[in-house]
């Protein structure tokens, strides 16, 4: 067991865990941060996506030891002062979910994409999001939500 300080959503959280325990497991099972989902544990579905130093990362493929020196943002950390982030708002507006289990991973992957590319083409969105599985098949709406989020973000930047 090791003792770690994790910087999650702007808060420092102390946790004891074996160094090779995944960030996903530590967040879900020790810190009760359950917005990040387990889908496969093998980096194949994207349900566990979080931002590590601003970049979309599968938290099932990162150990707590590796994550200890990074800034982590999860789905719980996107809302600011009761206001949804542009991507969250866009998913809600487009109804871009069915069961919603993939949604947090989708939202964080899209958030990361829109930080890297301010105006991605549809091909770029598909390429960036292709590692995230929505078993309910909501992909067309998620695509629309990412485009809408891009517009919301651009509007927000202008103000």
């Amino acid at each position, binding site marked *: 067991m090791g003792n770690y300080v994790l910087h999650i959503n702007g808060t420092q959280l102390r946790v004891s*865990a*074996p160094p090779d*325990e995944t960030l996903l*497991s530590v967040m*879900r*099972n*020790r810190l*009760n941060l*359950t*917005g*990040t*989902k*387990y*889908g*496969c*544990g*093998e980096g*194949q*579905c994207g*349900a566990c996506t979080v931002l590590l130093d601003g970049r979309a990362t599968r938290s099932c493929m990162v150990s707590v030891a590796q994550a200890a020196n990074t800034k982590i943002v*999860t*789905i*719980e950390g*996107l*809302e600011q002062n009761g206001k*949804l982030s542009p991507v*969250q*708002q866009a*998913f*809600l507006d487009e*109804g871009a*979910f*069915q*069961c*919603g*289990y*993939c*949604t*947090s991973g989708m*939202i964080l992957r899209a958030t990361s994409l829109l930080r890297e590319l301010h105006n991605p083409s549809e091909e770029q*969105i*598909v*390429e960036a*999001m*292709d*590692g*995230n*599985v*929505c*078993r*309910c*098949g*909501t*992909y*067309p*709406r*998620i*695509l629309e939500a990412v485009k809408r989020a891009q517009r919301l973000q651009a509007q927000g930047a202008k103000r």
Partner: protein
Amino acid sequence: MNSQDRPMLELADGASHDQPYGLQLDRRNFLKVLGGGLLVCLTPTSAWTQESGRSFGGHELPKDVGAWLHIAADGQVKVFTGKVEVGQNIRTSLAQLVAEELRVPFDAITMVMGDTDLVPWDMGTFGSRSTPTMGPQLRTMAAAAREMLLEMAGQRWHVEPASLTAADSRVSDPNTSRTFTYGELTRGEKLVKIVSAKESLTPAAEWKTAGTAVHKAEGREFVTGKHKYPSDIARPEMLFGAVLRPDGFNATLESVDTSAAEKLPGVKVVRDGEFTGVAAPDAITAQDALSAIQAKWKVPEQPSNKGLFEYMKSNPETGRDQGLQHVAGSVAQAMEGADLKLEEQYTVAYIAHAPLEPRAAVAEWEGDKLTVWTGTQRPFGVRDELAQAFHIAPEQVRVIQPDMGSGYGGKHTGETAIEAARLARAASKPVKVVWTRQEEFTWAYFRPAGLIEIRAGAQRDGKLIAWEHHNYNSGPSAITTPYAVPNQLIQYHAAKSPLRQGSYRGLASTANNFARESHMDGMAHAVGMDPLELRLKNLDDARLRAVFEAAAEKFGWGRVKSTPEHGFGIAGGTEKGGYVATCAEVEIEPAGKKVRIRRIVQAWESGAVVNPDGLRNQIMGAIVQGIGGTLFEQILFANGRILNPHFAQYRVPRFSDTPMVEVVLLDRRDLPSAGAGETGIVGLAPAASNAIFAATGIRLRNMPMTPRDAVAKKQG
């Protein structure tokens, strides 16, 4: 109807007043939970019995009531139903129907679903039954509640209830413009109303809340990560469980050594017959403990993918219901006189539901009372499984089903609930069990594989005269042809299945429709007719004709001819009250480098649309999910082992597989609403297959079609 016809009871502390009605409200301490107000209960009537027309898995009918509706003193409405939300949007659409009949805003309604201590017994959420059966029940209750509120206001004002109006959570008297809110009417009351007759319901043509694109209830919880799925549930002092799995199906345990696992700190090992599991203070220790167990299994020789369909055909399952045999005229005779004949075999593979949230359960014992939070489409079924497993009365078990990470027919059973409960009992603490993806791919059950044989005969003018259809193992759903054929022989043959199989979205209607609609395409080709024209020539069913015509029009069917690079296909069908027609465009790169479904237009009709936004989402999702089984999804197995139990090996549809999808909804407000979660999946496979044929001349008769291989082979 006057008030004497309506039993109205003063209910004190949920006591024995309910006995004359056979209700069990005391058991659930119902009004204690709810406080005062107005409670409306719906009792089953003979109408429901006739409509259901099948047994309810040991419960001939719900013994007590079908649903409950409660209006609190503050006007808040709670509706209690055993149906569950799994992503199909039923929490939203049922609330819309209640809001409509009760004349309250959508937001005034809270749906309490899938908690066996709070909701009436229900057989489960499957078979596209929620909208056509629970919908009318809830509407009936809400309409009765509205009538009762009108009566209560009438009594207070000493006027005829018929002279009053109900709207926006209040009763008004148009003559005096005085009003009561619903809360003002129910405040201080403890009233129970029993409804059994069908109230007169608001015609869909007059709907204001139902029929509109209300957003998903509690949608904000889902985009902020606040919603708690079954696998997110945590309890004080909860341990984490894991279960030892055999090396293969039907394996027997020869020896097991758990001593190393038992030495790990805080680990409890449980052995009970064939069950071996561990509970540990954290999830990683539970996995470590499991890895430390040395077990030897004996796995018997078993069938594999190779030879599967021959196996099914030659191994009938005599114990199982063989389903209907549908016979009309004489196929044998008609075939002799047919100008054109076509006889083919079609197959579908076993596929996995692979819900993104695997099976999960948290179990907690308080003495002999067991509470389990779990993801299931059958909370009461799982309650009964638990009661049986632990030799306790069903009343001692409470199953709570938080809205879950979907199921698609794959979460009917209670394995995980039993595992968590067994470990929790031994550990005397709550235990959570979440299956790994590999467990989900291996120890759940599968959509049945099957072999379908069709032979058909037609006249030279395209009129079908004979149709023979045999389905081995995959199931009887949508096995009968919707086309008008005078001579028919249609038979389902239950077979022995090497793998554990069960329900799946659309179940066998995907397989039967794939075979039938591919064969129809083959007939059109043989006759030399346009595939749509051949279908319409043989189709009397006006609703199916309408979706075919709507899809064709939107798609621009017939305007462009198929080429080797672009193929166009059409297919349709009906099942469970839903009517679907699908047009597909496929894109084929030279040398079979890439075969891609580029565009789908799907027309859908299922009576009056309750929520067009939710319905579009379901139909689109069914199309996208259907791509998997059509093109690449299949479970590979050999000798009792699954060979591809990971997303890296079992490919599911992704963004890059997704075509342009256009959904055309035909809203028939003159017809009752049918369920729409399933049948939207059945058009995609044959439409895609027919499009590939139109482009390449290659007829792919096996799902998944893996078309790249077939096209590459032909093009050499």
